[in-house]
């Protein structure tokens, strides 16, 4: 089926994009890589809508080190995340996550901003943001604000973004000395959204474990994290995941299987960061 689009306009720069968003009063959608948006328009899951194409907005690109943060522009493609030296050096969890996203053709187009705004609970990058305790840089007519990842993902496909706001970048704390990170997932078919996945950030000051595919949003496994920080064994920590996660039954796997997979992933991720 072909997409039902009510209009298309290309934003020249960031202020232009914001003013277009504002003028549309919630009737328009931002078009980034189009890898989720166009599919949902084609399937008529999203209603008829105008598109504001941000692909020409230069301010949204680029990865740079700013102090203790890695700033990643919203238009950064998954492929760039996978091949960036800065990402590999400072936030290896993202470098490990990027190749797990879909297939090469999709990684060439899909963007980090699109992935976070779309907020698929089985997506890798939202979980990375959560585990890394990143800030989402959001811009609207009233200016810029920063939202902690933990506050950004509200529900299934739902974020803290207001109708007239967009993501311009993310700011991710870089790894400190002695920090290890691991991203892992399991899927029935290569390239698919994960049945369950983990992003583990193992800092000397404490561990953060975010799971994806096991609840309505990426979920921080606070119970298991606290146990690990107390010195619990991986098995003991994994046993606590039942209280942390909210997996559901669906056509791809029963909830119990997803929970089991999450437990295995926690043990494997810990083995990787502590080996």
């Amino acid at each position: 089926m072909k997409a039902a689009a009510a209009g298309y306009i290309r934003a020249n720069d960031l202020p232009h994009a914001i003013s277009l968003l504002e003028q549309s009063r919630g009737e328009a959608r931002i078009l980034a890589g189009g890898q989720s948006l166009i599919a949902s328009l084609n399937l008529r899951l999203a209603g008829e809508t105008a598109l504001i194409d941000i692909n020409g907005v230069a301010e949204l690109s680029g990865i740079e080190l700013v102090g203790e943060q890695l700033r990643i522009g919203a238009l950064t493609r998954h492929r760039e995340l996978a091949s960036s030296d800065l990402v590999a050096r400072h936030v290896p969890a993202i470098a490990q996550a990027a190749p797990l996203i879909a297939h090469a053709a999709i990684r060439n187009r899909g963007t980090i901003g699109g992935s976070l705004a779309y907020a698929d609970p089985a997506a890798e990058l939202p979980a990375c943001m959560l585990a890394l305790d990143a800030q989402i840089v959001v811009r609207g007519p009233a200016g810029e604000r920063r939202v902690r990842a933990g506050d950004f993902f509200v529900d299934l496909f739902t974020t803290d973004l207001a109708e007239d706001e967009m993501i311009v970048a993310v700011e991710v704390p870089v790894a400190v000395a002695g920090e290890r990170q691991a991203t892992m997932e399991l899927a029935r078919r290569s390239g698919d959204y994960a049945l369950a996945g983990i992003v583990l950030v193992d800092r000397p000051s404490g561990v953060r474990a975010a799971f994806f595919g096991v609840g309505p949003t990426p979920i921080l496994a606070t119970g298991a994290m606290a146990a690990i920080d107390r010195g619990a064994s991986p098995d003991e920590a994994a046993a606590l995941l039942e209280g942390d996660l909210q997996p559901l039954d669906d056509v791809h796997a029963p909830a119990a299987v997803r929970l089991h997979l999450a437990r295995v992933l926690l043990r494997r991720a810990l083995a990787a960061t502590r080996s």
Partner: protein
Amino acid sequence: MNTQFVGQPIRRVDGRLKVTGGARYAADFNLDEHVYAVIVNATVGLGRIVSIDQAAATRLPGVIAVISHLNAPRLAYHPHKGAIDPATGERLHVLQGDQVRFYGQPVAVVVADTLDQAERAAAALSITYAAKRPAVDPSASDTTEIMAEASKGPKAYYPADTARGDADAALATAPVRIDAFYDTARENHNPMEPHATVARWDGDRVTLWSKTQFVVNEQAEIAAIFGIPTENVQVISPFVGGGFGTTLRTWSHVTIAALAARQVGRPVKLALTRKQMFFTTGHRPRSLQRVALGATPDGKLTSIVHEGRGETSRYEEFIEALTAGTGFMYSCPNVRTQYRIVPLDTGTPNHMRGPGEAQGMFALECAMDELSYELGIDPIELRRRNEPEIDESTGKPFSSRSLMPCYDRGAELFGWAQRNPAPRSMRDDREYVGMGCASATYPVLFSPTRARARLLADGTAEIEVAASDMGPGTYTSMTQVAADALGLPLDNVRFSLGRSDFPPAPPHGGSQTMASVGSAIRAACAAVLEAAARNREVRPIEAEGSAQRDPEVAARFSMHSFGAVFAEVGIDSDVGTIRVRRALGVYGAGRIVNPRLALSQCTGGMVGGIGMALMERTMLDARDGRLVNAHMADYLMPVNLDIDRLEAHFVDEEDPHVNPLGVKGLGEIALVGMAPAIANAIFHATGTRLRNLPISIENVLTA
């Protein structure tokens, strides 16, 4: 037989056209002034249409017509049953009444200037139903099995009941026994190219640019439905982007396209969406089977019982080869097979690559594997000890049978000797590794076919048959056959197919195109050479030839292909993920006309078998018959990254009986055998026997 080109790994003659986009598939045809039709599908699984409110849809821009049973003309629907249609029952009549027989049944069609407008209007139609709960699960208690009319009696092609000896008595007294149930999922064909038809009427003649694997049947079917002479229908189908059987029948959308074009008086283009393909273009029926084997301690079979049930619709009795291989695969004095079908509130199933054999051989070959462990005999050795000298189900000799040569060659190439026979004994890091094997078989069909050959003044030749090429390479292999028969270079032969005004060919299914069309082309080439020798002046000169199986040969021989399939799986011991690390098939399929095409045909079939084993399953909601996963994100098929090393090999096999070319066909057998080889490998890896397909992570974990 001149074999300068036959037997050579010639590249596809249409390869350049395909990769440059020059090959035109049905929906690629654009006619002047054509408009678009979009089908509206029922959103209940059983019941009646109560009302259709089309006011809003009709007002939308570009809308030309909204056609439903309320305003559609009554169509003739004269009786017509093609070679591929179920013998019993009546095909779905569309837009002729208010009855809804299954979820997704077409209930209306919208025609508009553009596709977008037609889709928009289709979504704006408001239809209400009186719905009842459909029966869609053949294992549920609200269904009843029946004996298909066409399977009654011993002469039936797929007999409901066969017996030799007393299998049940022999089973009861067998020293070693296995008795198990197997369940294979409903599957959809899912070729890349969606079904599409472009229809144009000129008076009472209609031309259909359409996706079909059976050109002359589409012509006859549409003529019968519209009550017009067959010659008034012209079908054009030069390229088919994959079929696997789904385009063997002429489904209701072809009728709807022609009906819409006639109603609006303009050419109409109609393409199904991926989702719609799940509704109305057939499916591999789910099967429920029991296989029981009895044997002596040294591994001689004393009894085989195979009982199978398959799905069908309420309005047609679809039958296939579910238990057909069981009678002749192995030597055994006592064999009983039983085949029943279960009518459900779904569309009629149809043939899907390896139809019946794929599911039936899954059950039989898993059972043989189970027996081998029970006996402590190597599974290949078990088959060797039961290798028959003749087809014991008919008493006829095989025209050729290379099952054991296939096993021997396969075992060597695969490294079977490295397998530790004990289950759960082989590991590679985190993976349990298992190796399994299974037999494959498929009959050698050969149907009456005609071909036309023409020699031109410039020394080139043209060959025409109403055949299809859904991907195996018909264009190429037939060019090879004709070039050899005429003694011409390949470049001097142009082979055309896919037009109903060409000489008729049988369905492009049942692995018979090479045999049937190839033999007819040889005959036509011989005829035209003879004519040309008699008359050296007139060019172009043309002649027709035909081929069909000699009934005497058919009476004398049992004709089948055989193969041995090997698979190695790796199973993540903690999470149960299953990976096919490598697979290998060896086939005895007569003469191989083009090893390059044959390899691609076989590896494609093996991928289909991997899908059947581990991923493919069409799910229906028991409450309303809704298809839960009717799209490619949720109906899983393997992708390139899921496929590791696949190999296909062919043993030398000369079979002078099957057909003049000595070919047996590869399309179906390449899928048969893969799923049981994988299931058997999974048992070897884990020690757990999983008998329901597809096998998924949770089956491995909870076993």
